[in-house]
């Protein structure tokens, strides 16, 4: 079993990684590493994240450390460009990311070491979507996000604040995780008034296909924060 996983990982690594020459050695050391930006992004499995990861190394006083070594790592075939390097004068190190081929919650780790070799790390949690969830995301951009996302962009002005009953963000796991999938599908298909909620949520059952609505439900589950935990199968394996 373990052999198989290792073999697969090696395979993926062999297929994707460019051979990188060992970089320069650290010229300074910090005792803390924090994430500056690039966490909580959502992209298709295997796709590039829109924003690069930026990690910052600090000293004991919390000031940025230039010249400290930062190394990114993750399970599976995630690709970092570059995977490691030294922090700049602002104490930060930036790396572009392609997610691995498996959908799900992805944990990207930035690691630095102090002089004694003790490691400090920070996690960048990201989400990789499978086909159905990607479809859900596309549909949500088209039909849902104008009301369910309060953020306005130059291309899309939000209608969120114009509504009497503020719609839930799709990432609002605290509210949406407790709804069953049948419930989610019912609200989307038949509208809010059909389930005793606001009529401002219209019925999409005839505008979208059943498969489209399934995809929206899958996307809502995929981006839930806190993460959605399905009622699993009992598994006695270690």
């Amino acid at each position, binding site marked *: 079993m373990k052999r198989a996983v290792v073999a697969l990982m090696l395979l993926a690594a062999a297929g994707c990684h460019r051979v990188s020459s060992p970089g320069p050695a650290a010229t300074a050391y910090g005792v803390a590493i924090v994430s500056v930006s690039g966490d909580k992004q959502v992209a298709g499995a295997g796709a590039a994240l829109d924003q690069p990861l930026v990690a910052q190394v600090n000293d004991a006083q919390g000031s940025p450390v230039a010249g400290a070594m930062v190394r990114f790592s993750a399970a599976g*075939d995630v690709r970092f460009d570059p995977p490691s390097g030294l922090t700049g004068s602002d104490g930060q190190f930036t790396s572009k990311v392609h997610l691995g081929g498996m959908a799900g919650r992805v944990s990207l780790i930035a690691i630095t070491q102090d002089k004694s070799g003790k490691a400090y790390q920070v996690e960048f949690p990201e989400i990789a979507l499978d086909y*159905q969830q990607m*479809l859900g995301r*596309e549909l949500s951009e088209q039909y849902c996000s104008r009301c369910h996302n309060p953020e306005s962009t*130059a*291309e899309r*002005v939000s209608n969120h604040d114009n509504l009497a009953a503020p719609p839930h963000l799709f990432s609002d796991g605290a509210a949406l995780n407790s709804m069953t999938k049948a419930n989610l599908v019912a609200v989307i298909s038949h509208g809010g008034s059909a389930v005793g909620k606001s009529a401002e949520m219209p019925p999409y059952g005839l*505008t979208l296909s059943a498969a489209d609505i399934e995809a929206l439900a899958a996307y809502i589950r995929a981006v839930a924060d806190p993460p959605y935990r399905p009622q699993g199968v009992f598994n006695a394996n270690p």
Partner: protein
Amino acid sequence: MSLFEKIRQLLFRDSMRAFGTFSVALLLLLAVVPAKDHFRQWLGYQNDYQRLIRNRSDGVSLARRFQGGVQQTWLPDLNVVDRCTTCHVGLKEASLVGVAQPFRPHPPIPHALSEFGCVMCHRGQGFATTVDDAHNSTLAWEQPILPARYVESSCGQCHEKPLTGTPQLNTGRDMLARYGCVHCHKIASPEGQVMTATDTPPPLRHVAAKTSREWIYAWIKNPQAYAATATMPNFQLSDDDARDLSAFLINQSTPYLEGPAKAVAVSSDVQAGSSVYGESFCASCHAMQNAAGLMVGGNVGPELTRVGSKVKPEWLGEWLRNPKTYDPETAMPHYRFDEKEIGMVMGFLGSKADSDFMANVKLEPATPAQIAHGKTLVNERGCASCHEINGIAHPDNFAPELSGVGSLALAKILFAPGIPHTVPDYIAAKIRNPHSFGSALKMPQFTLTDGQIDSLVTALLAQTARAKSLPATMRIQAPSPSTYQPAGKAGRLIADMRCFSCHMINGRGGSMAPDLTWEGSSVQRGWLVNFLKHPNTLRPALIRRMPKFNMTDDDASTLADYIMTAYQTPAFDSDSMDASKFAAADAAHGKDLYYGKYACNSCHILDPAKDKGYLGPTLTQAGTRLNAAWVFHWLQNAQKLRPGALEINWNMGDDDARAITAFLMQQKGGAK
């Protein structure tokens, strides 16, 4: 006695002993076969799988569905022989989500695995039964697994029509058409439909009237230094080459006006010019960097952040007066500005200059030898693939055809050092840095993000030999481009104002603005005439809006008559519902439904003092704007009237639809 003699004595002393020796040897030999089978890699995986499911609560049902031995999906029509399910035994077991590979279930997709197999989408060697042979390229087998980031390309083998759920493939195909790729490379679908360009590179026949040689020099040296959003690639010209190329382009240029350009009094009131620019909604098509450094505006026309450093004032005046005088094919509408407005827009655009851009360009007058060399360069670099240039014919097939590039044979590829030997890596490297394959390569350097390169590679990988070999019934073709062209005086006005640049009519045109195919059934003539003359904002949330074309009364009424007559839907008779005959009780009931049951006010503003939703069009003057029968049928099934409409398909009963229509037809409020 020698060792050899000892062994001979031991094993073959007499015939009995020799027979025994041979028998044992044969037995061992025969045992090799089952032993070899016992150590097969796939058997190990199947044993692992059985151990995995043993302790699960659903183990019994999983075990019941498990089939040992080599599994095979054989689809002769699709040329698929896949044994992947020999190791990937849990592909159809949704409950195994989250377990380690190779036992994970396949994520949900709209196709049955048993009808499509695995290699259709993932590539790899379907008939292999070892991990290495199936996933990697070896000396004998050259098809490795397709990395996940390109997997949408496989959808593109059948789906030639844009598909929701494959954003990367769609983006890649749009880019192939928009970034000029198809000007040089032929890319055809398996049916032979050739991809056409959606960009419109400007003609250069009269370029000397438009801009200076210095600007051309600086631009061709680095287009993105002038405009970050420019799609023109960088040809990495040397200073001398840029000098000679600019000399030739100026030299070949001919005048486009009979006489001198008409003099315009350029206004120094930049603020007033900015207002005309804003009111004309130039930003619907043109982007400009604002004070905060953000790019604001559309990408139909060129970015205008530094346009004051580029165009000559006398050219700009003529261009604003009527762009078709200079370029008959331009997407830019004829705005019918008066001379004062032209002067104001010129003042504003002239202020959008950047003195740094050409500060270091000092060019001596060109020599005949330099001009001749410039012409050679134009031919070598294929400039005429995109631009019209006097004396240079459009080169056919300037670059290799890419119709089958997705399944290029590895043996035919010359890999640059350091590039993994796979087709996706080759295509990506070629796009990312063409000159890594040799400085003599003609392909220019594009400025692209990693995501854009992934998209382009995805679109190109869809061009496979497999796609060509699939049964034609499997392919979902894109609609062939429409050549719809309205005739007569209205047709000329539609062409003059370039309605197709933004509006779709009968399958032709852009997607920025509403589809007008059935506009005549949708609106009232009086409103339409007024709107054409004074377009106001129907959708408050939109940034891109209908420009004011300064039409004459005659033009507006000709156009309105044509739209009202020609653009009628066959779905209903637009005279079938008389708005004056609605009962007051109907309208009152309609109001209750509007604000209650259907909560139309979530998206539409009807009473500006009270309503807030602004996704759909404003309905304050629905009664003077819309046709009653259209509203009635729209409420019943909007997508039937306009496919893809964001309006909900309410499937509304006749009574509810009639009541809301009655209520809406009462709304004649507001001057605007």
